[in-house]
């Protein structure tokens, strides 16, 4: 068997076993409908004031983190990796390619990712949104010259469609986030979102390139480009979450959990 596939299966098996072990602990604080607008508190309860004593407005724990010691180590390794290798790559990318080119590259890969959004909208029975996605793909691929220009933004019916992903589908099916995980290189995720990433990976045509050309040699440069185009945004989000933090690990964890809670509820 292909060793990469074996590795992925092992990872999937590991996450699946973790999933069963900590879903109950972490799913006790589900997001409410009001969190669509980001209007709820950290713990997802309604934001009614506690008269006289508002100290516990922001209840603290938001996700189970039984693997914290291991996660902290992975987080530290990732931080070094980002600082000394990936950040310079990202800076270089921003330096070498002018902004219009980078935004073209970004848009092309985003457009290609269409099946991830389309299939998940369908799996969530959000057919109007799936239709919007199909419309966006059609408009951007044709008028937008292969997705280089995001022409769909000019059509009010096609602008601002929240992007669906596999983890969001799991959440809609009632699956809680499970415990918090820090993956090597990728960084913060939860068991559910990690499995979701595997689903997104399988649905992303970038992954299929290897099958079309019968060689993984094609997949690598395409996947690398897809990763690099996201780096400037990812680092800016990372900095926003960890800058001026008392504890970078906790700051990133909380930011991730809150951000995903909103993304999932959209």
């Amino acid at each position, binding site marked *: 068997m292909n060793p990469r596939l074996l590795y992925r299966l092992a990872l999937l098996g590991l996450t699946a076993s973790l999933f069963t072990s900590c879903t109950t602990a972490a799913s006790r604080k589900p997001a409410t409908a009001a*969190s669509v607008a980001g209007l709820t508190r*950290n713990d997802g309860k309604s*934001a009614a004031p506690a008269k006289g004593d*508002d100290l*516990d*407005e*922001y209840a603290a724990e*938001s996700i189970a983190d039984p693997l914290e010691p291991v996660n902290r180590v992975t987080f530290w390794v990732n931080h070094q990796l980002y600082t000394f290798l990936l950040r310079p790559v990202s800076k270089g990318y921003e330096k070498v390619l002018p902004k219009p080119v980078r935004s073209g590259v970004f848009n092309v890969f985003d457009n290609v990712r269409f099946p991830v959004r389309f299939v998940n909208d369908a799996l969530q029975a959000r057919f109007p949104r799936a239709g919007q996605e199909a419309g966006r793909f059609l408009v951007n691929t044709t008028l937008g010259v292969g997705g280089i220009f995001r022409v769909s933004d000019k059509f009010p019916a096609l602008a601002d469609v929240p992007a669906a992903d596999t983890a969001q589908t799991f959440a809609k099916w009632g699956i809680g986030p499970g415990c918090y995980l820090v993956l090597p290189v990728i960084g913060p995720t939860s068991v559910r979102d990690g499995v979701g990433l595997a689903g997104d990976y399988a649905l992303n045509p970038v992954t299929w390139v290897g099958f079309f050309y019968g060689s993984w040699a094609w997949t690598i440069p395409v996947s690398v480009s897809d990763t690099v185009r996201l780096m400037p945004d990812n680092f800016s989000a990372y900095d926003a979450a960890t800058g*001026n933090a008392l504890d970078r690990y906790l700051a990133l964890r909380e930011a991730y959990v809150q951000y995903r809670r909103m993304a999932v509820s959209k």
Partner: protein
Amino acid sequence: MIPRLLLLLCATSLPALHAASDTAKARLETAVNEVLDVANRATSTSALAKDLRPVLLKSISFEAMTRRAVGPGWRQFSDAQRKKATELFTTLIIRTYSAKFTPGERPRIEYKSAATPAPGRVEVPTTLLYQGSRYEVVYRMEQSENWRITDIVIEGVSLIANYRTQFDAQFKKGGAGAVLASLTQTLDTSR
């Protein structure tokens, strides 16, 4: 009978809530415009933090922010420790907030209709368009003498909730002293 009475009660209190959210929203818009004017003139991020301070002190309730970020442990802070924590956290928040601006580049902000989760509280959802990206930003406000911001939620991430977890960990380690020490250390290293 009871539902009708309830309806009547709701109907009579609605205009008041509406007026409150309008006042809060107007206050927020003024504050944000003031901030953007200052940001527009600033030459560097550190200068921006200094210039923004008086503007932000007017429109943000840093005391409420600090109290809630610390949580129930706040009861065990002495008056002097509370004052110190508020002072340090204020500087940290202003620094964090200022770092989000690139001097000279003005974001466009769309204000949506405000929600009133409770009397004396208003939440104003906004969309911020900045450097080609859209961000959902919710301002939570409360009325004391006037309307002040008590939390800023960017893309679902609450500023206060984020610090709450970190303060909690410090408080569990060593009480108020540990919270103050870690705040001081963060301010020193992030300068």
